[in-house]
């Protein structure tokens, strides 16, 4: 079981984490806008996360923290 946390206000919505996720449980939010004015990334199904850190490996802005139980 994994857990990802996003530093939402520093996300630029580039979507590289969405591409990297092997479980396809990340998406770029359509209704949230952060401080910078971007649509940030968000997780759709927290229970499916395996904590592989692929999203964080590809994140150019270091805004993802990954924990594993």
């Amino acid at each position, binding site marked *: 079981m*994994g857990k990802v946390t996003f530093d939402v206000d*520093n996300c*630029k*919505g*580039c*979507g*590289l984490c969405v*591409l*990297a996720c092997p479980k396809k449980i990340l998406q770029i939010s359509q209704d949230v806008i952060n401080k910078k004015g*971007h649509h940030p990334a968000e997780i759709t199904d927290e229970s499916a996360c395996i*904590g592989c*850190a*692929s999203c*964080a*490996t*590809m*994140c*150019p*802005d*270091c805004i*993802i*923290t*990954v*924990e*594993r*139980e």
Partner: protein
Amino acid sequence: MVVFEKPKALTDVPFHYCPGCTHGIVHRLVAEVIDELGIEGKTIGIAPVGCSVMAYDYFTCDMIEAAHGRAPAVATGVKRADPENHIVFTYQGDGDLASIGMAETVHAAARNENITIIFINNAIYGMTGGQMAPTSLPGQVTQTSPYGRNTDLCGWPIKVCELLSELDGPEYLERVTVNSVAHVRQAKRAIKKAFQNQIDNKGFSLIEVLSSCPTNWGMTPEKALKWIDDAMIPYYPLGVYKDRSAQKKEA
């Protein structure tokens, strides 16, 4: 248990890079390597001119800002002033290293200067708005080559790793990219080796990282990563171009 967080060698300052720019990934890899080798206190970074001109804001180690292209010369001075106690790296783009700084780069390599160079090759001038760089591909559309790079008029791209590998000087030359998770891990191994070479006093290491520039290429971040695979890697093949220590062992 935390398996991934922002490395300690990066400050809290958010990167100013465009969305999807892979500069951020390479900054992080350098910071992770500095953390893992435990050399933050004695590392001095040399920032270039270009998009990564403000790299000094992002690393917690000491940083110096060099004049355009002169980072290897500044690094040489810093390293020679106190070779035992300092680890010196430069972080340069292609407009900096392969254009105005070509002389400094080639001579630092030829002298086998004991420094580490991280070279970001994104085939375009990023900061100034997308002009043709020495590394722009044949036929590539840029601000100054709107009909595509014409090799009859503008010449051919410079392949830095291949060029330097002809010299007897440099210790380690490798070309990597960061357009997928596997490639990022490979890039980190290369960067770590480049720093380790310097700690072991082996000499000049240069890691060329094929990077994306979604804004100036006029692509989405996703398409830009794919363009590295489709257009850049065929022209700039990945791999180790020189590893003198390994060659000595074989001989």
